[in-house]
């Protein structure tokens, strides 16, 4: 299974390599990513899975222009990424630290809009819609540290949603929410993706989730990281928590990816080139 390049790639990752320099002279440098190459067409919903410590967060940060890659090419709409692109929103894995404790939930959500110059009324409107969508309408006036872990994470999601980006990067965005909310949020992401036509890069640990959400799942190997597998999810576009998950193809894909991850855990880059199922 290889991705269909039906449309032009909006994001191009070629030969990406990232080595974290040693913070002190005594310490060693850490090679987080060895060699990653893939491209994502406009409007695709891609899930990224891989073992813990594989470099998923590192990859996302590089794409977001927050970390300079050690080597390789990163292009967004044909232009090299040198800093955070305007049209991108990121939901960080460390949701707690990415919310500002000095701002109310509402101010946190509205901040990017404010900086983008969205008029006040529309800002309010978008913010309350987004909070509504993640089920936090009544938390608008609270401060992040007054919220539970899951609620904080949903605020971070609401902030990204309200921003209406063209590319949405999400790093394990549902890790801290309960099963029911998670399902709701999954459907929310698919809805936004469909309605706004955004390109989504979604990092998750939940294999079911990756299959349920994505059009395509990229499996990363263990460190040093390469692309272990690249799976097209050929499930119907209309998905539903109950029916999709009981679809035999779903179960099959799920098993396949599970196997790949298990293989990935023992398989580090360089040892072997990415294989397809």
């Amino acid at each position, binding site marked *: 299974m290889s991705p269909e390049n039906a449309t032009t790639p909006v994001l191009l990752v070629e030969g990406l390599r990232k080595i974290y320099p040693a913070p002190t002279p005594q310490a060693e440098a850490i090679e987080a990513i060895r060699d990653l190459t893939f491209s994502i067409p406009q409007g695709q919903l891609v899930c990224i899975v891989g073992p813990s410590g594989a470099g998923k967060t590192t990859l996302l940060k590089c794409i977001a222009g927050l970390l300079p890659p050690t080597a390789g090419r990163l292009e967004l709409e044909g232009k090299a990424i040198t800093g955070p692109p305007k049209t991108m*929103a*990121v939901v960080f894995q460390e949701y707690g630290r*990415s919310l500002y404790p000095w*701002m109310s939930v509402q101010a946190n959500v509205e901040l990017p809009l404010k900086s983008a110059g969205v008029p006040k009324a529309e800002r309010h409107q978008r913010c309350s819609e987004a909070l509504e969508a993640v089920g936090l309408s009544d938390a608008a006036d609270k401060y992040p540290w007054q919220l539970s872990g899951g609620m904080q994470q949903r605020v971070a999601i609401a902030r990204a949603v309200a921003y209406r980006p063209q590319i949405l990067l999400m790093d394990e965005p549902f890790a801290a929410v309960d099963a029911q909310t998670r399902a709701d949020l999954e459907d929310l992401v698919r809805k936004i993706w469909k309605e706004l036509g955004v390109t989504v890069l979604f990092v998750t640990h939940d294999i079911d989730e990756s299959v349920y959400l994505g059009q395509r799942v990229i499996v990363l190997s263990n460190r040093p990281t390469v692309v272990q597998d690249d799976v097209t999810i050929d499930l119907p576009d209309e998905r539903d928590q109950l029916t999709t998950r009981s679809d035999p193809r779903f179960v099959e894909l799920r098993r396949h990816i599970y196997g790949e991850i298990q293989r990935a855990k023992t398989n580090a880059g360089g040892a072997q080139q990415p294989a397809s199922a």
Partner: protein
Amino acid sequence: MTAVLNTVSEVRRLRRRTSSGAGAWLGAIGVVAFLGLWETVSRLGLVDTRFVPPASEVLVRFGQYVIDRAFWRDVGSTMLSWSLGLIIAVAAATVIGFLIGSSRFLERLTHSTIEFLRPVPSVALIPLAVLLFGTKIQAGLLLIVYAAFWQVLIQVIYGAKDVDPVADATARSYGLSRFQRIRHVTWPTALPYLMTGVRLAAAVALILAITAELIIGTPGLGKQIAETREGGAITSMYALILATGLIGVAINLVARFIERRVLAWHTSVRMDVAG
């Protein structure tokens, strides 16, 4: 229904407890204890009362000052140069501090100069100040600003460097401009540092305001202290020193009040409320 009523009254009770003034009482106890110790030491003759008069006498003298209009005029002129100097120092140091603190290049470039200029004692600048401004209020102001400026500057530089990487990454990923990042991320992070800096600078500015009056002779509390000292009026001198200290306490109260307002979100203030 009763449960709801219960909750409401409970919530009220909690709110009341947190805003009660237990702290003020403890502080008062501390002050009274200190005055008591002073009085005892003096009365027992452990120190010569000619040189260290008992607290009670100083308090009585202080009481006389309080109802004296001239005293308030002196306090007024001291506070005027104090506040002007502090405002200038804080404003300048904040702006410059943020610039330096958020750029590694600027920080390295200015480091040696800052460290060289900082330890220059204001007292040594008196001839220069008088030469530039004569004995007008500006001369005193120069000294106040010079001394207070560094205190705030260093704090702000440290605060600006303390920004959480994830918080900063968030701001950058949403395309906030440099200015917006300073406004929404760096500023709140550095605010606790700045508050400490302002509290430090406030005291230093007061000290310099008084010292400048003492030496240059512009009217104010410092000049009064110098005159009472020269005249051998020790009790009056201590009463004026007491006044100086009390002004310091008052300034701190204001600073704490502001802090509780602007740093309500901060761990230190939150824990105070909760604990």
